[in-house]
């Protein structure tokens, strides 16, 4: 006799979304989280007393508006704050670039670097916005998969084909062309300013193993325009209370629908019998049964860690092992005594993304090192100072800084991460110091999360925040495993819903949302 309708393993944002939707649909839901804090990588932690830091993910601008309104997250305390300005890209010579929200303002700033780029910026953003909206629509398309080979919705397909044609010939061609392109090539078709191109390429670089010159980076760029974006950059993304505020609101929503959530409760095994998932086992030894088991945990940790290898057929197992999750990011969290003083631009420009990556060549070089098992000494950095938008995160006048660093490969050839942790932190601080002299003097405290630390803390294979690379061969019907993109696994009643599933990472909530839809639909079909 099952205790619950469904157990969700992992209260990361996708697990929480799935749990909330299922509870809202009337199911008896239990969410189990290993850590004492809920939210997976979307957490705010007071790692230094008095300083609340989004220790992993730091922006939630890609989060689905539909989910926000369906689950009434704002009523539960979720508040998305704007990025002001959108982005600041400093340069060592003092000639930085600020990209503001309103197009005329943005154009004015860009014109200081290139007049033609200033004219092209808005059309570029508008085109990419249209294409990313089409991509978002494409994400919803049900595809035939091994669990449901007959799952071909002619009506839905024709609807998509119609919407595709509505884009018009030019946009249709652009979509087909841009999807596999390199972001460097795309940006070079539109712009001439190195600094602008470097700044915009940031969205393409996030959690990517390859640099901006490589094919597939334009897709990564498009993917990161979901949600609050002007087509090229996010327009919102801070969360009141730090990104943990999103997870807290999701928890509140889930509970309001009757879901039960247990933290500091680790699942060690998924129970299967005769190719059927029937429950889970906790670290304590306690067994809990449910009709459906849903895992929001990292895909390889789920299928290679929580499931008995003999329960999966060898071909599927091999494909899971072949999922590429090469970690290339590190996270550095800092408590600051004061705002950094960048030699280009004033402190009013620090309320959005601070982008260190002054050209495409810089970004490409920063990605080269990982191939040879080294971390980059001149890395790409995506920096935010969330305490500007939300002063409650730090004591008055002081700040918290959140830094994503690329590239830092999980496997170092000539060292190990225990030994390299502080040198990595030093390299990051040194890099920022090149743009903001005196920066190192303002650091009160520092936490360095290497790929190994990310793996251990957040249970991410190789510390990859998206669970699996967002490469062209690991998206859509190929994600997480070719033919298994509908959240089902070969084990009946075992579902997966984390970022390692379609449509991938970036704190969108969509994997959890689509998974819940599939689970609900299958439930009714079974009955």
């Amino acid at each position, binding site marked *: 006799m099952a205790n619950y309708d469904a157990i969700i393993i992992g209260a990361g944002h996708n697990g929480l979304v799935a749990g909330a939707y299922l509870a809202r649909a009337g199911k008896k839901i239990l969410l189990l989280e290993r850590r004492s804090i809920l939210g997976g990588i979307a957490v705010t932690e007071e790692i230094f007393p008095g300083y609340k830091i989004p220790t992993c993910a730091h922006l939630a601008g890609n989060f689905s508006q539909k989910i926000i309104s369906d689950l009434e997250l704002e009523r539960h305390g979720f508040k998305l704050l704007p990025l002001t300005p959108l982005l600041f890209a400093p340069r060592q010579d003092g000639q930085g670039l600020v990209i503001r929200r309103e197009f005329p303002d943005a154009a004015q700033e860009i014109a200081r670097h290139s007049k033609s780029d200033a004219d092209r910026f808005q059309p570029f953003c508008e085109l990419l916005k249209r294409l990313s909206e089409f991509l978002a629509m494409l994400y919803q398309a049900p595809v035939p998969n091994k669990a449901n080979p007959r799952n071909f919705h002619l009506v839905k397909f024709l609807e998509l084909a119609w919407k595709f*044609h509505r884009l018009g010939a030019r946009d249709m061609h652009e979509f087909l062309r841009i999807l*596999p*392109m*390199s972001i460097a090539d795309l940006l070079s078709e539109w712009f001439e300013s190195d600094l602008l191109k470097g700044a915009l390429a940031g969205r393409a670089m996030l959690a990517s193993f390859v640099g901006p*010159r490589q094919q597939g980076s334009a897709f990564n760029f498009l993917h990161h325009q979901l949600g609050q974006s002007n087509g090229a950059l996010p327009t919102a993304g801070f969360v009141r209370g730090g990104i943990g505020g999103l997870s807290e609101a999701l928890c509140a929503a889930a509970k309001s629908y009757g879901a039960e959530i247990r933290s500091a409760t680790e699942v060690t095994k998924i129970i299967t019998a005769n190719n059927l998932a029937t429950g889970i086992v906790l670290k304590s030894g306690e067994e809990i049964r449910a009709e459906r088991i849903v895992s929001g945990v990292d895909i390889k940790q789920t299928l290679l860690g929580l499931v008995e290898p003999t329960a999966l057929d060898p071909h599927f197992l091999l494909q899971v092992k072949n999922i*590429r999750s090469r970690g290339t990011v590190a996270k550095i969290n800092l408590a600051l005594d004061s705002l950094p003083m960048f030699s280009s631009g004033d402190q009013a420009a620090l309320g959005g993304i601070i982008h260190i990556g002054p050209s495409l*060549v810089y970004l490409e070089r920063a990605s080269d090192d990982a*191939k040879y098992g080294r971390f980059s000494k001149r890395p790409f950095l995506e920096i935010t100072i969330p305490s500007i938008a939300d002063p409650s995160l730090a004591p008055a006048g002081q700040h918290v800084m959140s830094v994503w660093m690329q590239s830092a490969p999980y496997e170092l050839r000539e060292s190990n991460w225990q030994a390299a942790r502080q040198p990595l932190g030093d390299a990051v601080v040194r890099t920022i110091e090149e743009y903001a002299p005196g920066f190192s003097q303002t650091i009160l405290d520092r936490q360095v999360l290497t790929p190994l630390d990310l793996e251990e803390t957040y249970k991410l294979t190789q510390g990859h925040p998206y669970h699996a690379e967002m490469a062209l061969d690991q998206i859509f019907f190929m994600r997480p495993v070719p033919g298994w993109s509908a959240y089902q696994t070969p084990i009946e009643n075992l579902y997966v819903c984390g970022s390692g599933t379609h449509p991938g990472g970036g704190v969108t909530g969509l994997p959890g949302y689509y998974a819940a839809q599939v689970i609900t639909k299958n439930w009714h079909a079974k009955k």
Partner: protein
Amino acid sequence: MANYDAIVIGAGHNGLTAAAYLAKAGKKVLVLERRHVLGGAAVTEEIYPGFRYSVCSYVVSLLRPEVIRELALPNYDLEIIPLDSTFTPMPNGDYLFRSGDHARTRREIARHSVADAEAYEEYGRLMVHMAMAVKPLLAMIPPEPASWHPKNVFGLARLGNHFRRLGGELFYDLAKLMTMSSADFLDQWFETDVLKATMSASGIIGTFMGPRSPGTAYVLLHHYMGELDGAFRSWGFARGGMGTISRVIADAARHHGAEIRSQAPVDQVLIRRGRACGVVLASGEEIHAKVVVSGVDPKRTFLKMIDSQCLSREFKKQVSDFKIRGSSAKVNLSLDSLPDFTSMPGAGPHLAGAISISPSIDYIEQGYDEAKYGDFSRRPYMDIILPSVLDPSMAPPGKHVMSIFVQYAPYDLKTGTWPDQREALGDTVVDTLSEYAPNLKDIILHRQVVTPWDLEQEFGLTEGNIFQGELTLDQLFFLRPVAGWANYRTPIKNLYLCGACTHPGGGVMAASGRLAALEVLKDTQVRLL
């Protein structure tokens, strides 16, 4: 009053093929070639007396069987000698050797890894299956996805159905192959670095990508789609050098009545009332024709040979955005005797096949990294053959010619120009190869270095790109050369395009020339109706 039914600009092998098909259909055809030699990049030239070089293109495998058959090319003395093996010498004195002899290859790979020897068989079978699945696309006019025209809708539906019928696993394997990097793809099969490096090298030839770049695994297949007497994957070279292929196609064209003029550079396409009606030579001579087919790359064709006002700003932008960055060079050597490889001393079957300098993935990738930032690779990847071993007519008795394909040599150099750097590149190639064959410097009689700049200046290949345009996913099939114009037609009525810059892309295939000619004939028939 038109003098000719069709003028073909450029006697590259595709232009010659188009001319042959048009002539065979009864059209009065004139081919105009700028150089004194016919064949474009598929030429044999006796640069030094007695020594015949396939100056640019050096191997063939993808030459379309329907072209060979329909133009009756064997009648004109075309013989393709198979290249049966690939020999990869290693810095530590070991080597990797693969050949058409399956048992021997298995044993050779097993010396490095038994698991890889097993996997190699299965891998080969999969690649052949995928090649068979993709081959129909080589002979297909790409359907236009943005069009509601029944022909295109039908074409897309047929294409979709073709892939659907492949069955689940093959379809997914193909999807992976089209999008992965050759290194990642091969990592899933093999563990031996030198094996993966040698195999992935074919994925980067002619591209500005490295083995770790997404989109290089697909090119692996391109080179598996070759056919020699029905056998997949084999490479070969033409007796007499690559120029033989061009000569033979030219002979076929002349046999059907085509006229071919060399040393007749075309300056402009003549356009009246928005229609192509002939050409103007550099000499000023005007020649009229009902139809003009250009075998020259799109940047040269549209941005140099056509009055700018005849093309929309949008189309010109699309053409200038077309990526055509060259990354390859050739070094052709005359040798006094055979090279002696430390890994396999003396003369042997290894010298009758391809020799690959590709000791590891990192080696090739590092070479690529240098090129990204504007330097030629200090330790380049090389694909080498000694045509004179199997075809003694290529060199004086006892002596040899060596054809070395080199990557990476980027067209855009960070410092200096290619004329300045030409010999430095030649030296780098010779120095690197000497590490594997120490007698090399002693036996070199002559050296010819063909840089991307030379490919552009002498052979008309913009930016020295050997495929008249990069083979990246955004420039293939219905996107090649530009979206909306992938069916050999151009925005100018009666002006057509053929060559590697159109589908199905690069390699000595003659596919494009044939398809373009067929489209010209379709249009002229419609007109007659």
